[in-house]
């Protein structure tokens, strides 16, 4: 049954051969068992009929409730959601052309990093991936440098706090290292952007007692990200509460 299910879902997505090969390589690398592939079911919208998974990359619709799946898949989908948001933001920033010189050059780098993260999770999750989210940046003025930098700072600090807070939910050591590979790049972005705002503000997220960075629980992160996403991400049943 599982085998039929996977074949059907892969057929529907009309993935190219190299994409499928990459996904298989990842699943092999990550040690995902056939059993966890079935988790695709729980990452579907709640009103989906039968076992039809939401094909990766399908645009979500306004008001959709997005479920992340469970276990490590939920953590990866959680990261995928945040990376989608970040990538969409920097794509708009670069498109707007408000920033100049080195700032524009670095924000273009950051855009490409976030697209790389987004596409990595999309490929890695394959048919278990949540759909493409619809961002809502109506409160950002992309013609205003301060508005861009303020929002970028919020997103980068939130990203760092999100990965730091999600680490303890990850069971697979390879995923934990992957999250680590990404979070330190987000922290580099955050430090750079904070210093644009106020000089020597790069590490002001540190707590006064131990100099530790932020960590936030997924529920808190998603409630902060919620105003920027038209869909609603529901973590009930994902195992990411705690």
């Amino acid at each position: 049954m599982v085998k039929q299910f996977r074949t059907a879902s892969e057929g529907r997505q009309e993935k190219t051969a190299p994409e499928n090969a990459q996904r298989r390589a990842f699943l092999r690398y990550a040690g995902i068992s056939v059993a966890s592939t079935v988790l695709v079911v729980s990452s579907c919208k709640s009103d989906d009929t039968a076992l039809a998974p939401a094909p990766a990359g399908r645009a979500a619709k306004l008001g959709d409730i997005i479920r992340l799946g469970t276990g490590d898949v939920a953590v990866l989908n959680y990261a995928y959601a945040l990376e989608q948001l970040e990538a969409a933001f920097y794509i708009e920033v670069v498109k707007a052309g408000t920033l100049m010189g080195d700032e524009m050059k670095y924000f273009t780098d950051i855009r490409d990093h976030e697209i790389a993260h987004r596409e990595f999770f999309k490929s890695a999750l394959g048919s278990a991936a949540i759909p493409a989210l619809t961002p809502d940046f109506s409160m950002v003025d992309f013609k205003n440098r301060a508005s861009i930098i303020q929002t970028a700072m919020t997103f980068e600090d939130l990203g760092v706090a999100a990965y730091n807070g999600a680490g303890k939910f990850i069971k697979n050591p390879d995923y934990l290292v992957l999250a680590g590979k990404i979070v330190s790049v987000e922290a580099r972005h955050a430090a750079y952007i904070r210093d644009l705002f106020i000089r020597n503000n790069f590490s002001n997220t540190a707590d006064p007692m131990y100099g530790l960075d932020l960590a936030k629980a997924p529920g808190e992160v998603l409630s902060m990200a919620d105003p920027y996403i038209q869909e609603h991400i529901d973590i009930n049943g994902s195992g990411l509460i705690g």
Partner: protein
Amino acid sequence: MNVFHIFDDIASFDADVYDRFDTRRKVMRQFARVGRKLTAASLPVALGTMFQKAYGQVPSQVLDVLNFALTQELLEIEVYTTGYRSVTFPDMESKQAIEIVIDHEHKHAKFLQDTIRALGGAPIPKPKFDVTGGFGSGNGPFKDAYRDFLFFLGTVQVFEDTGVRAYKGQAPRLIGTGDVLTGALKIHSMEARHAAKLREMRKKYAGAPVKPWITFNEPGLGDKNALVMKNYMGEENTKQAGIEITNINGMPIEPNDASESFDEPLTKEQVLDIIRPFLVM
């Protein structure tokens, strides 16, 4: 943080955790007294009390990771404070930036020491260091870093980038330790913030060809690159979990972006190999 969740974290690697404490109810009563929310300050003590009562000892691997991290923090503190006292800063902003980082490194060492003690272990005493990287000769290749501000900046950039890699490599050994892992991750991203700042300072003051993020395995130290190749070896990776990031899914992601967008870990052996010249045996 909520103390009640610590038990669930522990239960994820020790199903009998509740049996080890007299009864769940008694433990809950005990912690109800200190309140549901623990501050960062009281975390190590609370953790330690629980671990000691429940296990008598903490898995030695956890203490090993924390002491390994402590060794690196102590070395960083020695390098930073030696340089801070001896180099000439070009302006107040650069001096203040180094002060901020030194302050954090002291606090990270304190966090590791408090956590190790709270878990019933013994923090390693400060080893004797040779900040010149001369195996105790005091005449190593980094000797001039303590006379030359720009060489000093380059040196601490390398230490921070390496620290990020070291914490990343150790994280899997802390799986199942809940808030101990979270603490290590919080230090890890703070080190990355430091690294980004130092790289920006190197660009500003030395005109160094570096960005806040690491491109391929380039140290950006010019004629000093050969000294630190091991610190950056592997950072050029563009393939993650078997997936090529360059041009991923048809996106215009170039190889340099692909390498920058993921930082790479170092194993404990690689880190020890790198820091050995700074230890006096």
